[in-house]
């Protein structure tokens, strides 16, 4: 559940739009490229990597009200660089984009913000706070602790707001090969790590009033300069919490020739990751729904034979469409089958008919 859609959609749309938003389609040559040998270092890597073209701080939360009503919350800050380095003031070398969503079975509320770096409207500050406007993912960890171990998450849209406290109950998890996540047979890759162990407590503000909620959240951090290959059309990305405390990150990158490049990380309850490369995870769409004028697969079967996993996912709200600048589907799901649980699903690259 991660690497995000809108930028991806843009990059996948071919050369015409590749010039587009933030100049992402230009070649990576001026930008740094992930190195499989380089080890991630914390807390430094929590902060922006302006030498890489794109980067995100991506949070999703499965929440429940005292009356049992279920909610999902998304908070994402994307950074994209027009050229390496950050220029001060109005100059727009670094662009920032925030997405926030609050999903219930009845409604999917979305807001989107854009801003340029340097003005102070958006960015990442020390001690750790990633923000755009008054939305923030800000550390509240005591000094000396990992800044991501405790944080406050806030956002506000036209018809919703939320203010959540996040407390990590497990370690950071490196995805792929020690944080080097391969995205295509051609070797495109990104740096990728997660904090999937958040416990959440907080409040949602809705037009009907405040709702106290508790639940679980998952943070993905990823940065790269060319995470996708040209023949990939989109992806289906899962981040799942199972009842026994284990977790699964799995994605399938859809290729133009119909192939599927998959990758998965099985995360034991203690945070120990096991990486599974292309082909180990099998993703099968079971049912599509018409969402925003297009057919989107909203029920899925996931099979990871190495772990005896065979589950199906059901969306909380199948119309969880992010009608943002670069639209995609992102919403909470429940898991049943060999393992029960909940999580988030993101699907990109499903064009209008």
């Amino acid at each position, binding site marked *: 559940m991660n690497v995000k859609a809108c930028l991806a959609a843009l990059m996948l749309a071919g050369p015409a739009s590749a010039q*587009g*938003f933030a100049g992402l389609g230009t070649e990576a040559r001026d930008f740094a490229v992930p190195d499989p040998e380089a080890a991630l270092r914390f807390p430094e890597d929590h902060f922006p990597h302006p030498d890489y073209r794109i980067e995100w701080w991506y949070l999703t939360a499965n929440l429940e009200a005292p009356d049992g009503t279920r909610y999902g919350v998304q908070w994402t800050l994307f950074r994209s660089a*027009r050229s390496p380095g950050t220029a001060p003031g109005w100059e727009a070398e670094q662009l920032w984009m925030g997405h926030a969503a609050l999903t219930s079975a009845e409604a999917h509320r979305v807001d989107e913000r854009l801003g*340029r770096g340097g003005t102070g409207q958006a960015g990442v500050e020390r001690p750790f706070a990633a923000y755009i406007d008054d939305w923030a993912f800000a550390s509240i960890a005591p000094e000396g602790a990992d800044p991501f171990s405790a944080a406050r998450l806030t956002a*506000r849209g036209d018809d919703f707001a939320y203010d959540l406290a996040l407390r990590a109950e497990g370690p950071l998890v490196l995805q792929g090969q020690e944080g080097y996540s391969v995205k295509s047979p051609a070797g495109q890759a990104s740096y990728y790590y997660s904090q999937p162990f958040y416990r959440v407590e907080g409040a949602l*503000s809705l037009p009907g009033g405040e709702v106290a909620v508790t639940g679980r959240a998952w943070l993905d951090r990823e940065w790269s300069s060319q995470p996708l290959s040209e023949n990939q059309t989109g992806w289906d990305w899962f981040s799942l919490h199972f009842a026994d405390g284990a977790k699964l990150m799995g994605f399938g990158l859809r290729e133009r020739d119909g192939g599927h490049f998959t990758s998965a990380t099985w995360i034991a309850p203690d945070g120990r990751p096991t990486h599974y490369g292309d082909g180990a995870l099998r993703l099968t769409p079971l049912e599509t729904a018409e969402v925003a004028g297009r057919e989107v697969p909203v029920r899925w079967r996931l099979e990871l034979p190495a772990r005896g996993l065979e589950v199906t996912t059901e969306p909380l709200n199948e119309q969880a469409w992010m009608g943002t600048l670069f639209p995609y589907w992102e919403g909470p799901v429940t898991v049943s089958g060999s393992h029960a649980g909940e999580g988030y699903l993101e699907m990109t690259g499903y064009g209008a008919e």
Partner: protein
Amino acid sequence: MTRAGLSALFAHWRRHPLQLAALLLGLALATALWSGVQAINAEARASYDRAAETLGQGALDRLVSDRGLGMAEFTELRRAGYRVTPLVEGRLEVGGRRLSIRGIDPLTAPPGLGTLAIAGDEEALDGLLSEAGLLLVAPETARALSGAEGLPPLRSSANIAQGEAVTDVVTAQRLLGVETLTALVLAPEQPFGLPPLREATEFAYVEGQSGGDLTRLTESFHLNLTAFGLLSFAVGLFIVQSAIGLAFEQRRQTFRTLRALGMPLARLIWLLAGELTGLALVAGTAGIALGYVIAAALLPGVAGTLRGLYGADVSGQLTFDPLWAVSALAIALAGAGLAGAQALWRVARMPLLAPAQPRAWAMASARTLKAQGALAGLLLLTSAGLALFGQGLVLAFACLAALLIGAALALPPLLIAALRALRPLARGPVTEWLLADARQQVPALSLALMALLLALSANIGVGTMVGSFRTTFTGWLDQRLAAELYLTARTPEEAREIRAFAAPQSDAILPIWSVETQIKGQPTQVFGVADHATYRENWPLLSAAPGVWDRLAAGEGLLINEQLWRREGLALGDPIRVTKGLSLPVAGVYSDYGNPAGQLMVGARTLDAAFPGRPRLRFALRLPPEEAPALAREIRDRFGLPAGNLVNQAEVKALSLRVFEQTFLVTGALNALTLGVAGFAILTSLLTLSTLRLPQLAPIWALGVRPQRLGALEVARTLLLAALTWVLAVPVGLALAWVLLAIVNVEAFGWRLPMRLFPADWLWLGLAALGAAALACLWPVIRLTRLPPNRLLRVFANER
């Protein structure tokens, strides 16, 4: 049977190609004028929508500050959760053209701030944010600016109004040489759960103007155009009516023969209706093409007018809309139907065995004339009533319509009365015959003469209005722009430096501080003026309390413009609340042509006290006029001031007059066209009559009057009728001008112009009318003089 019927009907047109041409041309002209005007209106409205989108920031609320707003204020409000976006606005002089620059932040700009031009155009977004920057402009502007130096790359967008450029806030600041923002614009929807920004900020909160302003303002202009279009259509229908009437009269024998051969009446009617429809379709199609040409030719003038009067930018480029073409065709069909209905009805009622003789079809009985006169009187009374008691623009136009139709209907009875009155002046039998014959011709020529009357009075009315406007406007400009140089500095520091530099070379430096505020719920500009002879001696006051300038200087009164005065129904002495702490009585009213909004003037010191810390950027310099160009050049060179920031009043006047000249270009062109159509109507009517009148001319010829003499008499008669029509058109035109100036103008613009008379123009118009009439009768007369004697003799042979 149907085929035989059709060929019989068509044979008529084969034998009378000229009649066919008149019918087709009349209908085509009517359709062309009507649809041309519609096309212009549609194009202008589409331009307003584009302008409303690009100018949309006017509709959005904004924050401004006298200290200037910058990035820090932007960031502070964004971090507090408010959706604000920076805006930098200014004007740039590029290659002699003024370019309005709007700098936005494409990342935070809400829809309506120029974002439509960027949406879906990723290259544009990329360019805007690039180091070189990018100017998004209308295609016309791009063409005009191509080759201009010192500008970022240009990119065309159909969603930007002409003369505007949308760019990134950084680029705008660089081009305009400013470091601050003009305003922080608020997105219409603010996030959930925040206190209203109006209460949460110390900055001045300016409410957006409703987006319909431009549409409302220009509505009167379009009503004007539409009225002209309808007038032209009506005039065109006169032609069609006479051509159709003639064709039906001449074919009476054919109809009778067809009926006698057994063709059912219904089928005959259907055939005729089909024939009419076919002709209408052909003429309508030609009319659409012609209308498109007319619209394309007039549109640049209309664009100039709208820009001059309202600051509305309208593309000079016409786009083809199929819906428009269909509606134009429909109006051609409807017009032909209207003109042909009477003729069809007469055929339907024609007794089968009645003698199939051409009757003087248009000859009206005395009773008809009386009824027509009564109706005319009723309409004229209605018009007068509306003028006295009507309110609103629509009623003002209803008053115009009643006046024109009433006058047209009154024309035949009045002409007959006038000819009767001339009778005692007649010397000799020929003159007497001429007058009697003219009287007898009036009913037959009445439609054409009505068209002439309408064209002439519209010409006089609009000409009087334009002339009055022009005279008043030039005088007003002289008063209003009394100072020699007008200067706008870019920063307060620069303003101070320029003032220090110019002081030794000037007689006076007059500040022109202004603030935007709300008066009576309307956005209003408040000017602070210095106490100086420039104002005391020149300012155009419509009414004033005694010692008005002393009261202004002492902070004991204020001036309002005529628009505010009329709109709010204010009187001298009425208090106006300028700010919470400042309320002043109205000490005078000044005329402020060309400005649709309200305006106030207070003493400069009063303004300073009420709005402390305003940036003082504008001022006027008084100095001997001959030294003005040199000083202007010096200031420009020394301070690198853009040309648009330093204006020589002589140039302003020339510019304003140029705008003005363009302003009524369109009505002028339409006037000429209607006069042309009226002349054509006379021609067709005379052609219609030329064969019908042989029985009346033959006896005169037989009495010894030679054809050449007859021809000269024909010309004299036509000229006499045209001259009489012109005489009647003068008062009608003046009434029209009065309604336009005193009613329509006040309703549409908020100001009233004094009416001036231009008798020389009427004289010229009279000559033009006589010329048109002479031209129109030329051909029928030539035909008459070349008539072989046996045609005239045959009149006596075919004793009817």
